């Protein structure tokens, strides 16, 4: 399975990772090789087989609908690259 450079660019765009022209050229055969190898899964007959959802049988729990956390704004913002007035800040998104 070949992964052309346009596909590499599209996937990198979806993953929000900027890549240079050189990186796209290097990644194209690399990803192609890995996907080629993965292709062998197609040989397995999985008709009537359910996809795995939980490796160990475990019932999902529900807890009481009460507040168990909060009031720690300073701690939440402590690692932010940029925070102002008690909020995370990002470049302007609305003109």
């Amino acid at each position, binding site marked *: 399975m070949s992964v052309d450079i346009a596909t590499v660019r599209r996937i990198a765009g979806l993953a929000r*990772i900027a890549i240079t022209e050189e990186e796209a050229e290097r990644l194209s055969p690399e990803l192609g090789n890995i996907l080629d190898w993965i292709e062998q899964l197609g040989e397995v007959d999985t008709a009537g087989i359910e996809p795995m959802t939980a490796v*160990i049988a475990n019932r999902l729990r529900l807890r009481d609908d009460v507040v168990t956390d909060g009031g720690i704004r300073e701690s939440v913002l402590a690692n932010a690259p940029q925070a102002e007035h008690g909020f995370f800040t990002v470049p302007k998104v609305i003109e």
Partner: protein
Amino acid sequence: MTDLTDLGIRDIRDGVRAGTFSAREVAEAFTAAVAAAKPLNAFLVETPEHALAAADAADAARAAGEAPKPLAGVPIGMKDLFCTKGVPSTAASHILEGFTPGYESTVSQKLWNAGAGMLGKLNMDQFAMGSSNETSHFGNVVSPWRRADGGNAPLAPGGSSGGSSAAVAARIAPGATGTDTGGSIRQPAAFTGISGIKPTYGRCSRWGVIAFASSLDQAGPMARDVRDCAIMLEAMAGFDPKDATSLDLEVPRWEAGLNASLKGKRVGIPMEYRVDDMPADIDALWQRGIDWLRDAGAEIVEVSLPHTRYALPAYYIIAPAEASSNLARYDGVRYGLRDLPDGANLQEMYARTRAEGFGDEVKRRILIGTYVLSAGFYDAYYSQAQKVRTLIARDFERAWAQCDVLLTPTAPSAAFALGEKAADPLAMYLNDVFTVPSSLAGLPAMSVPGGVDAGGLPLGLQIIGKPLDEQGVLDAALAIEERAGFVARPGRWW
């Protein structure tokens, strides 16, 4: 007096309880050993103050006549994948450089509650993605082992828990935490001649563990021997309401239950693990392992796990798919790195931050994961892989009708040299061929040293058990340990 750093977890615990030495003496010996082992690059952060404070608390409690905590006086290393309050936690990545959690992971908190102290945060493959430690942003860990060929080629300590394996093998920590997604505890344990167990998925809480592939990630101990692993796992395991996949079960008393007699037990040998290009040393070790377990009283049966060869490709769809989703959180907004060139908009900030902050292997896996989950490919790749995963789990279930545990080699080779496989991602992935199937099925599995190869490097044997049967895994590993008489250790060059 013996060098305290020669002691494992059990001997330290018992010696502190008996008053043979103080916890303070132990902590001082290990913090000094850590400080003197910089060439290994095993620790990203050293926290001697944490280890010494825990030791002083243990000594004070003993002086006051209080009942000893399970790990009182035992200093350990903490893989940098665990968030530790007030101590930088980076997963060996650039994107989390400087990140200092305001909270403590459940597993590390349990260890501190049990009286353990922290020597520091251990280096690893970036975001636990790698099998050699070469993907760390902070330089690779160097194995304390050297080949007996007179050359000094630096060797891989295995990965991703390579700082953990190197630290325990070099005797600068008596035990360390690891995490295992596709073999990241067992393969580094095998490469460095130590023991390590990945428990059943759900035994150890994932809360506060930086996520790689959530349906596979499990924490576990790495230590010098089987008993030390049992002691440490008891302190790490247990129900946690903060992890939706945590198992609400009592933690068995694995140490007290250890029993190396395998009378009445059946050990399965999966024929599909006999791969074509298996090195002769590993084949021979596997046969010795079979003989040892038979000697311990077990009946040996040949079993078939027909979908084994599809485990690795299924893993390299499922793990990157989950990783691409989990790592979407690193966006330069809430924590970690932000790269915002002048005039850049929000989308450009995301893309630049992630380009700067992730290493090549992490990017490769995010891209693979994004690809297999993208429109039009989801069924062909992801759904198919999850169906194959069902078949792999079913193979194991069927095997359990014939046997109680499985015996296999841990890895298809001894430690390789740093740089040897770094250029070929696929060759690196193939290192996990024996560890990935049990990960996909969520089963407990352990590596225990069995011997050395022609080059004098350690080789490990793997025991895989039924769900929740860590005891059966530990017992079989103990039976091997008692017969293997593995005493090789790396000579100190650092």
